[in-house]
């Protein structure tokens, strides 16, 4: 594996999307190549701190309630008039969602 091949593989690795066999080959290359190792681990670090800095922001409960109330109002006002024949549409297929 050559350094010139590494850029897209490093992207896939830090996203966790490398197949195991390819991951092992990339890791072997990184152990032998300080330049590629720096590229990979510094990008991984930047991605990690970005995720930590923003985290999983949850919508405030008050916002949820207000917005849902508006959406319910809209649903009550518009949807039935727009689709009076909705009950005539074909049924949806049953899908096993696991």
């Amino acid at each position: 594996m050559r350094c010139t091949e590494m850029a897209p593989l490093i992207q896939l690795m830090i996203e966790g999307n490398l197949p195991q066999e390819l991951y092992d080959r990339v890791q072997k290359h990184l152990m032998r190549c300080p330049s590629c190792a720096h590229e990979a681990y510094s990008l991984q670090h930047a991605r990690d701190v970005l995720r930590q800095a923003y985290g999983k922001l949850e919508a405030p409960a008050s916002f949820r309630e207000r917005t849902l109330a508006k959406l319910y109002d809209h649903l009550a006002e518009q949807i039935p008039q727009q689709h009076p024949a909705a009950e005539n549409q074909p049924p949806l297929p049953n899908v096993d969602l696991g």
Partner: protein
Amino acid sequence: MAVMDDAGCSPANIYEARMVRRLRNGDREALDGLFDLYVDRVYGYARAILGNREDAEEVAAEAFLRAFQNAASYRSDAPFHIWLFAIVRNLCRDRLRQPRLLTWTLDEAPVSSAEEEERAAIHADVRAALNRLPREYREVLLLCDVQEWNAPEAANILERSVPATKSLLYRARRALRAHLAECWSEE
């Protein structure tokens, strides 16, 4: 707009399509389901881009309203959430063009220990570094690295091809790393 690959046929997307069809028929449970599915991500994205709670709440509420108002006429091959997030993105862009009196910061959580204080300082550095990047870099980093949309999904939201989105993400990550290195080498 990029073409969805197999991600468009995932069980989650099939479930979503079913909810959208029920929503068109006026099903309140479907509305609840779609709202719960995306409210945190919609709000989180708007909050990260806009930097404050008030603007994020207004944009997120408007995005849901527009998406649900037009759900009846939505006929694209792309999943509903791609459309919803494209609306969020465009509303954020519009909001950023408006004159602003508010400061460009994400609200800080109160800190109670030296460790938390240090962590908060690092997070502030990261947010400052992100805000120094071009808008398209910020968008792709937040979509892919924070919100974990995959490349085809982000490509649809950003209205780019998948290769262009991957290339943009690569450049954005390198730019963020460079800003962080610059910031932290000065300390």
